[in-house]
Every structure is written in C-alpha cells, then in structure tokens.
C-alpha cells in the first residue's frame, strides 16, 4: 500500500509503515478469531479475558509464600520436607492435578539442589505458575545434567566450588521444588517481605536469593 492510498491524511507516512507489516501468523490468527466471532462461538472480549486472567493470576506467588513460611517456621519446614502436598494445603494452596506428587528439597550451605527438566518432566505449576522459557529449551534440558555449574553461570550464579550439587529429575510422578537458602541480614523480616525476594529460578535451584 502506498501513502497516497492511505486515508489517514497527515499521519499517512506513519500508518503506511505500520500497515505494511501484517505477518502471515498475525493474519491467520485474526482470521480464526474473526470466524469464531462470526459463528457466535466467542464474544469480542472473550480472548482478552483469558489473557488478562493468566497475566494476573498465575505466578510464583504461591511458591514464594511457601519458601518464606519455611524460613520463619521450622515446624512447617519439617512438614514440608516430609509431605509437601499436605504442607502446602495448610497455606490454602491447592494442588490441581491428581496423581502427581510434590517433593521439596532444601538448599544448605553445603548442598545446592537443582531441578532438571528432561523431555517428560513436569513443572510444579500450582506453586510456580507457568514455566519460564528456559524450562522447555532443549539445549538447557540437555546441559543441566552434563554441566550444571556452567548452566548456573548462565543464570548469573557463581556457586562456591566446594558446594555439592544435587540434580533432581522432575518426572511424571514427582515434581521437585527447591527451598533456597535464606539470605543473611533478613532476621526479623515478615513473611511477606521475605516472599518478595524469592524468584522462580531460585525455587528450581537456578538462582540464589539475595536481600
């Protein structure tokens, strides 16, 4: 389309530029949504509502809450390590999928746990929300087992060479979740303040928590 055919007058050049760039995928997606609207199978705001819901209501908040609680309450931490599904229910977190068990491992000054993701692995989504992009990356999945320290470096984690690394393979039956080490200088902090420090990466052993 040329600028002369653009009906937007003085903004013609600007629109001209934008309007040239409709990709096949964008057009295909619009076509599908348009057809489903026309058939009355969805409303005009249906898709917006789905996207909004996932952006706001899923996330690692639950996992961070569990970690903060474990840091301040040794009794809870013991129950968490013993039977994670039961312990998270104490915090009102429901594990939505049947037949899959959650197992929690605890990072210490001498041992660093990492969760690895092989082809048939599972993600503890009730605690961590949707999995991050690296989780499903084939190269990552292969490397984490072979060279965990190099992978950690990619995640900006320089692990003490004296620290032992243990790798856990999340499978169809068991999903692993890491309680990271509590950072120094956070004594007396509220659970809420502590939870805000905890990242998704830390809860899979690919990050550390700093205050």
């Amino acid at each position: 389309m040329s600028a002369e055919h653009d009906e937007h007058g003085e903004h013609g050049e600007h629109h001209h530029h934008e309007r040239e760039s409709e990709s096949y995928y964008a057009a295909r997606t619009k076509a599908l949504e348009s057809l489903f609207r026309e058939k009355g199978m969805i409303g005009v705001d249906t898709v917006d509502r789905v996207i909004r819901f996932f952006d706001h209501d899923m996330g690692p908040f639950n996992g961070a809450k569990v970690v903060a609680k474990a840091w301040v309450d040794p009794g809870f931490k013991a129950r968490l390590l013993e039977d994670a599904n039961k312990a998270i229910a104490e915090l009102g977190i429901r594990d939505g999928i049947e037949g899959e068990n959650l197992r929690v491992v605890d990072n210490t000054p001498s041992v660093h746990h990492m969760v690895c993701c092989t082809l048939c692995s599972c993600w503890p989504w009730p605690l961590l929300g949707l999995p991050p992009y690296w989780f499903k990356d084939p190269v990552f999945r292969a490397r984490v087992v072979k060279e965990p320290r190099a992978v950690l470096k990619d995640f900006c984690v320089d692990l003490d060479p004296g620290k032992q690394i243990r790798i856990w393979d999340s499978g169809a039956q068991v999903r692993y979740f890491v309680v990271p080490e509590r950072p120094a200088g956070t004594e007396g902090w509220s659970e809420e303040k502590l939870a805000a420090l905890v990242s998704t990466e830390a809860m899979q052993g690919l990050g550390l928590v700093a205050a």
Partner: protein
Amino acid sequence: MDAEASKQRIGQLNGGVAAPPTLCNNLQFEEPWQGRIFGLALALSEAGNYPWESFRQSLISTIAEWEAAHARDDPSWRYYEQWLAAFEKLVIDLGVINPVELHERTEAFRLRLRDEVI
C-alpha cells in the same frame, strides 16, 4: 471464564515441551497474535467445543513433528507457531472451520482488505 478450569488446562500442558514459555513470571508473548491464539484455544475448549485433551494431543504431535524435522537448537523454533498449527488442525478436523474460508479470511487480513478490529 472459569479460573480454576483454565489453570488446570494450562497445568496439563506442563509435561515438558508443550508448556507455554514465560518471562519474569508472566506469559511470554513476543507478538500480540501469540496471546490471541493462546486465549482462543482455551476459550473455545472452555465453551465446550472440544475437550482440552484433544488440543493437548494436537499440540504434542505438532511439536513432535517439528522436532523430528529440525535440529534441537534450530533457531527457527517458535512455540506459538506450533500452538497455532495445532489449533488449526484441530478445528479443521472437527469441521468447525472450513479450510477454504480460513484461507480466504487470512488473505483478507494479510492484504488489509478487511477492517474488522481484532
């Protein structure tokens, strides 16, 4: 929109490669159409047009075909292109969408012949 049901549906994709990518704990869409096609597949299942498992199977087999034809670190990999292909296959197989009308409507949007705002 049933929040719990939607979470469950996405949770069921989390068996590895079929899981949607996220960044900074939000869904990671590189372009707006990726969010649209994500929401469309969920919304239509929720409205009872197909069981979520049908979509999940279509996505898994679509990704498996791609992986069989490409190297593991092929940079052309785009998760939502797989999602779109899986969705298309499903709704065409179900007879909900006619491939000819889909092609024509796509061309209309691609060539800016249609004013509808999506």
